[in-house]
């Protein structure tokens, strides 16, 4: 029994995607503003209709930069906002930010709510962020080890998954290869050239067992999404995309994730998403078998595999075999994953491209459209809590 949806996504907009540092001299405000205006135009709204902002990552824009509602109001001419809030922590909240927008709309606090992420890596590469931050009393227990970025920390989780379950690098290669294939026909994708198994296995190792192609791209750009009530959505330009359910949070066993390595075994070799998946499916009244397309946050390929387990597409520990069987392929797979090429091949906008693709799949307008898809799962990053998930539906 599927829950009825009280809110819907009615607009999505994006800038061009740039290789790291190439968006300069555009600013974060310009990138984000361009995406917001594009999302308004997509919806058939104007900036003057916006009255709420629901961010994630603490309204951060990558690391070390931030977005500000007052800047957007001033520069875009938004007359009044009645809600502006952000989920805490980082990219784990990407999908859940739509739940924050929903909370505002259902509570009557706002009507037209924007979620936006802009990223510009001219100053600081995300890949070395943990080496670049000043020492703190807590990170003094991890920084000296040389685990200098998020992928380095996830490589330790990956090693343990391989040890516990016999997971092979072939599975990570299959994730990278299948997503590259999905990016091939996408005009805005940054990596379209075919990736071969030999390319993968000959690639530079960064943090073993992870190689270059297990890491997502480093890019600049912005994506914005507009959410409104189901009633208001009926009169707008696009077919509404109902928000069937959203959930964010997580359990202490996954814990501080990036800065703490004390997780119990089952949680250590995981994405931390299992509790969010449980709440998400309960709220939606569906299970993994009902999902037609999965847009899973892919900062590092093994974390896609661990999310497939945590969201119940296969049993815990069987993600490697499941992926290697071809199950996640757009063509011929049982659950197409990251049909847009994801952050490994299209662009890395901290989770927002997954929401955009989920919306397009549910409109029926995706470039790699899954035929008759009725439910899309979107996830935020396996990262410091909260992590999050979102189920989008097709308007009947």
């Amino acid at each position, binding site marked *: 029994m599927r829950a009825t949806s009280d809110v819907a996504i009615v607009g999505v907009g994006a800038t061009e995607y740039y290789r790291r540092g190439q968006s300069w001299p555009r600013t974060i405000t310009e990138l984000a503003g361009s995406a917001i205006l594009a999302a308004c135009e997509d919806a058939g709204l104007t900036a003057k209709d916006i009255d709420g902002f629901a961010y994630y990552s603490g309204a951060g824009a990558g690391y070390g930069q931030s977005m500000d509602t007052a800047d957007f109001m001033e520069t875009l001419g938004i007359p009044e906002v009645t809600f502006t809030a952000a989920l805490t922590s980082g990219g784990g909240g990407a999908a859940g930010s739509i739940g924050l927008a929903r909370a505002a709309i259902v509570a009557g606090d706002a009507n037209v709510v924007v979620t936006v992420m802009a990223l510009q890596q001219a100053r600081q590469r995300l890949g070395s962020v943990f*080496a670049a931050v000043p020492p703190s009393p807590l990170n003094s227990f991890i920084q*000296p080890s*040389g685990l*200098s970025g998020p992928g*380095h920390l996830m490589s330790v989780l990956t*090693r343990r998954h391989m040890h516990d379950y016999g997971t092979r690098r072939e599975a990570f290669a299959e994730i990278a290869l299948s997503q590259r294939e999905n990016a091939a026909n996408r005009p805005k994708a940054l990596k379209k050239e075919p990736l071969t198994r030999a390319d993968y296995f000959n690639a530079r*190792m*960064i943090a073993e067992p*992870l190689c270059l192609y297990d890491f997502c791209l480093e890019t600049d750009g912005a994506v914005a999404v507009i959410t409104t009530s189901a009633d208001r959505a009926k009169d707008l330009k696009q077919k509404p995309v109902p928000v069937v359910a959203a959930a964010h949070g997580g359990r202490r066993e996954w814990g501080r994730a990036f800065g703490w*390595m004390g997780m119990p075994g089952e949680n250590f070799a995981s994405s931390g998403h299992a509790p969010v998946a449980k709440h998400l499916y309960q709220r939606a009244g569906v299970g993994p078998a009902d999902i037609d397309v999965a847009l899973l946050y892919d900062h590092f390929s093994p974390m896609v595999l661990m999310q497939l387990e945590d969201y119940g597409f296969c049993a815990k520990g069987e993600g490697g075999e499941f992926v290697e069987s071809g199950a996640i392929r757009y063509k011929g797979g049982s659950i197409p994953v990251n049909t847009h090429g994801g952050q490994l091949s299209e662009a890395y906008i901290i989770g927002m491209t997954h929401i955009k693709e989920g919306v397009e799949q549910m409109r029926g307008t995706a470039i790699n459209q899954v035929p008759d898809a009725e439910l899309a799962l979107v996830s935020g990053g396996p990262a410091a809590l909260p992590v999050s998930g979102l189920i989008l539906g097709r308007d009947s």
Partner: protein
Amino acid sequence: MTALATALPGENVHITTDPYTEPFWQAAKEDRLVAAKCAGCGTFRMPPTPFCPNCQSREVEWAQLAGRAVVYSFSVVHGFPGLPDITLVAAVLELPDAPGARLVSNVIDVDPAQVRIGDEVEVLFSPIAEGWKLPLFRPAG
């Protein structure tokens, strides 16, 4: 011949402390490995923090550890900002005499290709910036 795993040059390694973590680092200065143990219920925690997550007590005992550890997982890290050629084995270590707590450190003086989960290692203390010392580990003899 494979390069042996090493640690970041000591002068590049900076730490800071607060009142909850300082005893760990002061002990390291004296070549002693210690762990925060709840004085109420005996639960170990690492890094040291203001409260016991099990019983919320603020009372801490600093347990002296023997300095042996077991590799729970690890990464072979190739390069570090400013040090492109360095090879590090960054390891998550279980501490048999502080069950439930894990320490993140480096295993050094070892061919990275020979490291396995379950390996036994033992502590040594290496000078770092500002007069502190960092616990590192090498294969147990």
